[in-house]
């Protein structure tokens, strides 16, 4: 058994008592996951479907990849196309059959059966086919064989009984040869194949379907039966493009993905601030919802710009605007996405999903992501392709997409357009529960103008701000401003400016009042001081006056006293001393 057993294969095999069923990987992306390893090795597999559903291509890819990836040469027995046609047809998918034939890795035999040329005249068998097949297998040492479409022999040769017996012998012979074979067959009415080949090839049956629903065609693949092995039983959409076939087996994924604790900036510092200061978790899914013109694209573009600055690869899936338009519009808010697009970090992928249908669109998304391995993807807007299928279908597709992104640690922004009148906090498909972070953009109309608001509705695992911020688109990017919550609700825009101005005015007048009071106080103090000075001056003046009076009084008294002494002297009491006389006079007094 070749390598390439996934964990799932091992599990599936362990559940079986039988020895492990050897499988031959097809190399077709997705198919090996559905079949848990590939087609049954050494046995024939029936691939059936209507005309144009990709049977030949699937078979051809099985052979080519067998040669290129697993070094297993192959034989293609074509009943419907000539070697040249086949080579030409698959060349459009990038396969060079001619080269493989030259290198003796591939052998193509075209078997043409013309009923009109053939007359049956008795017993015959298909030994000729066996010989050709054996010759083809031996000439390249083939391990893989394709018979496309063997049912052609029923229309080309008479006598169904002989043919049936010979086919039975052929499939047994193929098993004995040990080649892994694909037998293709046309879908019949009410049965898998027109000629009941499923009776003979019963190990593995793969049904291809090509349905048109609402004018959109989708190819689907289903493993109807796989004897001895578990397999994905759903219908899986598949895509045929320049790289061959890709099947989308995403429902097989579980929720076992690892998570990163790393945080990455949203590209808007103030939004990072609202998200606990560090931004989103790496690998998380972010839903940005809002009505038309609320700035969803700008928000996503900031994130892209930040990622590109970190040197991370981004893919921008635009489903409503052309890349040129986005680049131009984002330039007006100061973002130069064109430069990143030019140096290859940013890849725009613009297509209307209605072009391919929802599933095809998602298959393409998958392919591109697998190919470019981006760190960041943006879906702008998600709503366009949610509107395509029915609710259940789109929701399951979206779950697959998100799971897929998470297992690859890709941070994704989904922009969702909310219809006017719809509940703002509800998204079309109820996708919000799938998202880790939900940023709500609203626009409110007041005073004859619309203003944008941003609110982090949820952010799993992040201590996020509970504040509503006003969201401004300036020529140098997004700015978040605190809004005013007044009595009449949230105040934004020019009303906010008015409010700011008003508050400024109030503050100013308050300040003026204070200043005036202070001035008054000063004034009063000065007045008081002046009064005090005046009073003191007056007091001083009065004091001086009084002192002067007092001294005058004293002087006068002295004079009087002197006079009295003089008089007493004069009266003749010749006292021994005038002083004595004076003192006795004082005593008398």
């Amino acid at each position: 058994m070749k390598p390439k057993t996934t964990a799932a294969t091992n599990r599936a095999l362990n559940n079986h008592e039988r020895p492990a069923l050897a499988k031959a990987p097809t190399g077709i992306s997705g198919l090996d996951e559905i079949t848990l390893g590939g087609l049954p090795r050494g046995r024939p597999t029936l691939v059936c479907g209507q005309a144009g559903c990709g049977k030949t291509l699937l078979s051809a890819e099985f052979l080519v990849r067998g040669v290129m990836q697993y070094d297993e040469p192959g034989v293609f027995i074509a009943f419907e196309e000539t070697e040249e046609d086949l080579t030409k047809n698959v060349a459009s998918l990038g396969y060079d059959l001619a080269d493989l034939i030259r290198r003796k890795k591939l052998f193509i035999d075209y078997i043409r059966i013309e009923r009109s040329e053939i007359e049956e005249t008795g017993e015959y068998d298909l030994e000729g086919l066996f010989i050709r097949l054996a010759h083809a297998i031996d000439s390249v040492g083939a391990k893989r064989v394709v018979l496309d479409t063997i049912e052609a022999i029923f229309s080309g040769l008479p006598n169904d009984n002989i043919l049936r017996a010979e086919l039975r012998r052929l499939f047994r012979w193929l098993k004995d040869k040990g080649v892994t074979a694909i037998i293709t067959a046309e879908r019949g009415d009410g049965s898998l194949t027109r000629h009941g080949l499923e009776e003979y090839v019963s190990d593995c049956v793969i049904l291809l379907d090509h349905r048109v629903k609402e004018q959109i065609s989708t190819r689907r693949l289903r493993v109807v039966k796989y004897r001895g092995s578990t397999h994905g039983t759903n219908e899986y959409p598949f895509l045929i493009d320049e790289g061959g076939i890709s099947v989308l087996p995403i429902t097989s994924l579980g929720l076992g993905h690892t998570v990163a604790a790393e945080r990455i900036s949203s590209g808007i510092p103030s939004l990072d601030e609202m998200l606990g200061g560090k931004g989103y978790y790496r690998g998380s899914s972010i839903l940005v919802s809002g009505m038309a013109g609320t700035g969803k694209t700008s928000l996503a573009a900031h994130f892209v710009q930040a990622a590109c600055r970190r040197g991370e690869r981004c893919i921008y899936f635009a489903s409503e605007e052309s890349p040129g338009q986005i680049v131009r519009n984002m330039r007006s808010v100061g973002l130069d996405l064109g430069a990143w697009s030019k140096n290859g970090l940013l890849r725009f992928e613009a297509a209307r999903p209605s072009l391919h249908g929802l599933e095809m669109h998602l298959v393409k998304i998958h392919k591109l992501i697998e190919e470019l391995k981006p760190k960041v993807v943006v879906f702008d807007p998600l709503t366009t392709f949610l509107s395509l299928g029915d609710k259940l279908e789109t929701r399951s597709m979206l779950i697959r997409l998100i799971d897929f992104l998470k297992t690859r640690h890709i941070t994704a922004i989904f922009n969702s357009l909310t219809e006017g009148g719809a509940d703002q906090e509800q998204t079309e498909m109820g996708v919000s529960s799938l998202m880790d972070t939900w940023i709500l953009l609203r626009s409110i109309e007041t005073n004859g103008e619309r203003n944008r608001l941003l609110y982090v509705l949820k952010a799993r695992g992040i201590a996020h701000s509970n504040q509503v911020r006003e969201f401004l688109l300036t020529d140098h990017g997004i700015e978040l401003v605190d809004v005013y919550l007044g009595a009449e609700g949230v105040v934004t825009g020019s009303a906010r400016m008015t409010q700011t101005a008003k508050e400024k005015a109030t503050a100013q007048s308050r300040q003026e009042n204070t200043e005036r009071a202070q001035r008054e106080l000063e004034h009063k103090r000065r007045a008081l001081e002046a009064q005090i000075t005046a009073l003191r001056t007056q007091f001083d003046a009065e004091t001086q006056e009084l002192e002067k009076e007092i001294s005058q009084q004293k002087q006068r008294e002295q004079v009087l006293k002197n006079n009295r002494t003089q008089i007493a002297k004069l009266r003749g009491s010749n006292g021994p001393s005038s002083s004595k006389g004076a003192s006795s006079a004082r005593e008398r007094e």
Partner: protein
Amino acid sequence: MALAKNMKLSETQDEQWILRLYVAGQTPKSLTAFSNLKKICAEHLHNKYRIDVIDLLENPQLARGDQILAVPTLVRNLPEPVRKIIGDLSNTEKVLVGLDLRSRS
């Protein structure tokens, strides 16, 4: 009797019939076909024919040229157009119709 390759039973210059009988080994079916063919040619073509017997077991690559799938297959290469008759040629009527020696009724 052995089946020889390129066995020439008869040759004539005017209106040459070239018939190839493809077989896969000496199976009862191929032997029957060969003897039936010889009988029919002797009866209806009178020395104007040549029969090449090709054993695909020996030359498997020759099956491609005449687009052989069933054996035994008798191919009328000349006169044109090419006709193919499969089976052991036991139904003489059908062989004659197939070789355009008798008109279809």
